[in-house]
């Protein structure tokens, strides 16, 4: 590793001094003849004081499925209100303040306040509320209370939704060559998410979520004319307020996510020598988890000492050897050293305690990545880039303890034509590694023909063509086509091949200062093939998965109407996600394959608005949003439709949702 690094570094440094740089940085300015005492700037405009706007919105939501709350900012059905704003203040002494708020009062909104003196210090306060909705009115017979899931004849109805509320305070101080920062944040996550337990038959249930993550970051940096360095600390503390879950007749059927903490110290730097720039970083970290373990027969511990030490390093160098040629290279190192204690624990078999013991497996992972690249300007408007990347991964307790992937890539950029910009990129990658062995610790019962797709030999070829055309100064069109294929040529059971291809077209029209129109359309297909063996020998079934995605959008903004008082706008978006699976092989059907049921979704989204200036200080905005959403999944079944399985019911969506909002804005300044 060190040898390769030196070769790259020395060769770049040896020739880098010969190239001259065009550096228009103000620090290089020839200011000998300047007399700034004569500067008066009578024509400059002072913006001291307040400027920006604050707005109050009220409206109506028509929502009959809370899933619509993702797009509408809140799942509230009925009247809604929010406050938004973006206000800046500055005075003649350089003191500045900025407040930005968006949809405060709704489930999804944020506020950010920054105050300070430009280039010296800044205090920042931040708040964000983010709620994601999966499904509403979900039903379960299990009721949760303080770690006990009690079955009841009465149905427990709840929403599968998670709310994150994050508050942060940060302060940075420094000028010129030094800077310091400290930032603390706390995020509370609450709600319910879908999960499942084995009792002993599987029961899906709504897992209550109530957790807090605290984050403390601090750092200091120094900067010189041609160097930079930063020392920082990042600490994260996760605590879960939900205990291990029990059923009345079965203790601890579901273990709670344990509290954990992580610490990282990072030292990074950059040094510039003419047109050669070197940068590097070393990060050392530790992840700790020593929560109390569930006490049971066969568990020798009160709490387990889980500890991962990490070390991440990087050194990168890039150099403009001439105005035509740039060379670069980098070396990355990443080590995950699992220092957790190892013990034997009793394991359950399907029908109760079998008495068998099993040791936990502390896996270590070590990665090395080497990259070299070159960029050469063949002629004015023609540039060729090429590179070679090699990734090596070593992991303990694995079927394949070492994998390495070599990739060659090249890009051609043509900007020589007046109204065209063309980018062509191609790459070829090959992954191999040590012998694939079925390891006793990890998978003694795996089929010998199975090759896990993230460890398996793989050939990956990809090509992408991107064309930007600007036929007129007000018109721009981008067309991109891409194709990639993964071939797992040594795999007989598992994922055998996958291809991913598609295109997208983006059109932008700026008809005038006031009127702009855009449109885009794209499709993507991802086809995968895999094989399995129910007879635990050679492949006797296969599955083909054909994913397709369609995306179409258009919109416009038309301002300057009614003596510059009215702006109209609209956006439309259509998206359609489809995944078709079919299984075949002798085990399934003698003739062809058997398709799975529907698994798709589509969404029409329409937004329209009219923004009218009542005066120079006041404006009103009327907006309307429509969401049509449909999704289906044939795997979703009614609560007791499958014997031995209890589900949360069919969580598919089929709804129309509307939002009308009237906003009043007051413009400062």
């Amino acid at each position: 590793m060190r040898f390769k690094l030196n070769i790259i570094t020395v060769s770049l440094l040896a020739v880098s001094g010969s190239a001259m740089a065009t550096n228009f940085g103000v620090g290089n300015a020839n200011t000998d003849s300047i007399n700034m005492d004569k500067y008066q700037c009578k024509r400059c405009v002072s913006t001291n004081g307040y400027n920006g706007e604050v707005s109050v919105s009220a409206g109506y939501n028509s929502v009959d499925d809370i899933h619509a709350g993702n797009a509408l900012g809140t799942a509230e059905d009925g009247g809604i209100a929010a406050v938004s704003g973006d206000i800046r203040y500055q005075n003649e002494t350089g003191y500045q303040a900025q407040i930005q708020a968006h949809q405060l009062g709704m489930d999804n909104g944020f506020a950010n306040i920054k105050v300070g003196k430009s280039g010296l210090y800044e205090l920042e306060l931040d708040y964000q509320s983010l709620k994601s909705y999966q499904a509403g009115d979900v039903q379960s017979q299990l009721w949760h209370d303080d770690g006990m899931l009690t079955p009841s004849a009465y149905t427990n109805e709840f929403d599968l939704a998670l709310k994150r509320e994050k508050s942060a305070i940060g302060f940075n101080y420094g000028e010129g060559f030094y800077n310091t920062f400290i930032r603390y944040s706390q995020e509370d996550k609450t709600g319910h998410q879908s999960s499942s337990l084995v009792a002993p038959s599987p029961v899906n249930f709504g897992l209550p979520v109530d957790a807090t993550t605290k984050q403390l970051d601090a750092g200091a940096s120094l900067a010189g004319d041609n160097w930079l360095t930063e020392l920082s600390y990042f600490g994260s503390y996760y605590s879960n307020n939900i205990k291990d879950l029990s059923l009345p007749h079965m203790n601890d059927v579901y273990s709670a996510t344990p509290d954990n903490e992580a610490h990282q110290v990072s030292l990074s730097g950059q040094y510039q020598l003419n047109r050669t720039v070197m940068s590097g970083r070393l990060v050392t970290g530790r992840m700790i988890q020593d929560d109390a373990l569930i006490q049971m027969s066969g568990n020798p511990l009160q709490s387990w000492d889980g500890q991962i030490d990490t070390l991440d390093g990087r050194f990168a160098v890039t150099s403009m050897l001439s105005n035509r040629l740039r060379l670069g290279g980098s070396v990355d190192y990443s080590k995950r050293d699992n220092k957790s204690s190892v013990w034997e624990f009793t394991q359950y078999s399907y029908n109760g305690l079998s008495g068998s013991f099993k040791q936990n497996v502390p896996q270590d992972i070590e990665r090395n990545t080497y990259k070299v690249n070159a960029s050469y300007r063949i002629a004015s408007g023609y540039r060729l880039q090429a590179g070679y990347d090699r990734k090596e991964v070593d992991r303990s307790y694995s079927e394949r303890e070492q994998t390495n992937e070599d990739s060659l890539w090249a890009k051609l950029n043509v900007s020589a034509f007046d109204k065209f910009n063309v980018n062509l990129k191609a790459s070829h990658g090959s992954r191999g590694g040590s012998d694939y062995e079925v390891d006793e610790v990890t998978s003694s019962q795996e089929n010998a023909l199975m090759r896990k797709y993230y460890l398996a030999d793989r050939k990956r070829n990809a090509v992408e063509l991107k064309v930007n055309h600007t036929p007129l100064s007000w018109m721009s069109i981008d067309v991109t086509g891409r194709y990639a294929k993964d071939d797992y040529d040594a795999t007989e059971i598992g994922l055998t091949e996958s291809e991913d291809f598609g295109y997208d077209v983006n059109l932008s029209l700026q008809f005038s200062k006031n009127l702009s129109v855009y449109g885009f359309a794209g499709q993507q297909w991802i086809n995968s093939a895999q094989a399995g063996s129910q007879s635990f020998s050679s492949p006797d079934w296969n599955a083909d998965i054909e994913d397709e995605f369609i995306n179409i959008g258009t919109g416009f903004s038309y301002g300057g109407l009614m003596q510059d008082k009215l702006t109209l706008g609209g956006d439309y978006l259509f998206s359609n996600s489809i995944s078709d699976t079919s299984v075949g092989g002798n085990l399934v059907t003698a003739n062809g394959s058997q398709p799975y049921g529907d698994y798709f979704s589509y969404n029409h989204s329409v937004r329209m608005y009219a923004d009218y200036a009542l005066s120079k200080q006041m404006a009103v905005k009327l907006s309307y949003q429509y969401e049509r959403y449909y999704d289906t999944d044939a795997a979703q079944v009614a609560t007791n439709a499958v014997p031995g399985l209890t589900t949360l019911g069919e969580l598919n969506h089929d709804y129309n949702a509307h939002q009308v909002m009237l906003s009043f804005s007051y413009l400062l300044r």
Partner: protein
Amino acid sequence: MSELNVINCSIPVNSLVYYLCKVELMIYRVFYNLFCGVITVLCLSLSAHATPWQNLTGEQLEQKLAEKFSAGDYSSKGADSCLMCHRKDEAVMAIFDGTHGMMNSKQSPMAGLQCEACHGPQGKHNRGGKEPMIAFGKDSKLSASAQNSVCQGCHNDPKQMAWHSSTHNLEEVACADCHTLHSAKDPALDKLSVNDTCSSCHTKEKADMNKRSSHPLKWDQMTCIDCHSPHGSMSESALNKPTINDTCYSCHSEKRGPVLWEHAPVTENCVTCHNPHGSVNEGMLKSRAPQLCQQCHAPDGHASRVVQEPGMDAFGGGKSCLNCHSKIHGSNHPSGSLLQR
């Protein structure tokens, strides 16, 4: 009422026909304005004044500007010299709305060499406009590295530490391709518009946001820069954190562990199973269960079974494999080696 008479709609006020006519008039005006707009733009584009340096190649222009910069022939009155001609241009005057136009901050260009701090010495530019100035943006012929050297003259802080080896630098992206200085607010620095800035080039990721499952980027509840550093970073894919998993843990800290029973591909790399930009499958999974699980698990037992139809049994219905193996990200139960409890 008089407006309606113009198109011969002499009809009672507040009647249905009256309002229909009014709508018709509005539509007419929209299309009329649209037509006029197109014609105006066409005329303007055809009659745009050619500058004396328009025929210079990028290299010639850069050479000329370097000579000018080295000569250091700055104007005698600073910004007043520039604004004598350019003050009628709203785009120019918008500099005073933003940070770079502040005259009372010693780090602002407007408190120093003013316009010439970024656009270079005026030289003879004001004498008939015969000399070029340093210009930025998509219409500038100046190389990205030359344009960026202006910005980097001041913006030399840790956020820029990995810029030179970054993909954006190697792809010759200019600062002004993303950032707007002559405005009250730079869209690239606004949480509500930064995703538009990124996705104007990253069109595949723009489409991914709209798939069946994705992070909430399309509603600007999350932003691209929550995970990525556009100025480059010392991690793969310009991620903010040292590794992919560290980046995921910054929001999903409950998955960080360590836990007693790990699921090897989970601890190795979250993107083994997930595509964080979006997927046609739920949970941003690359494939759905049971197929995804069966791409790695083929034991002498139930996991090798072919699931012929979804929704028919516990292997293909509900949460499929996760009906039992729900602790798929790892379990801390002493008896949780099968990730069931």
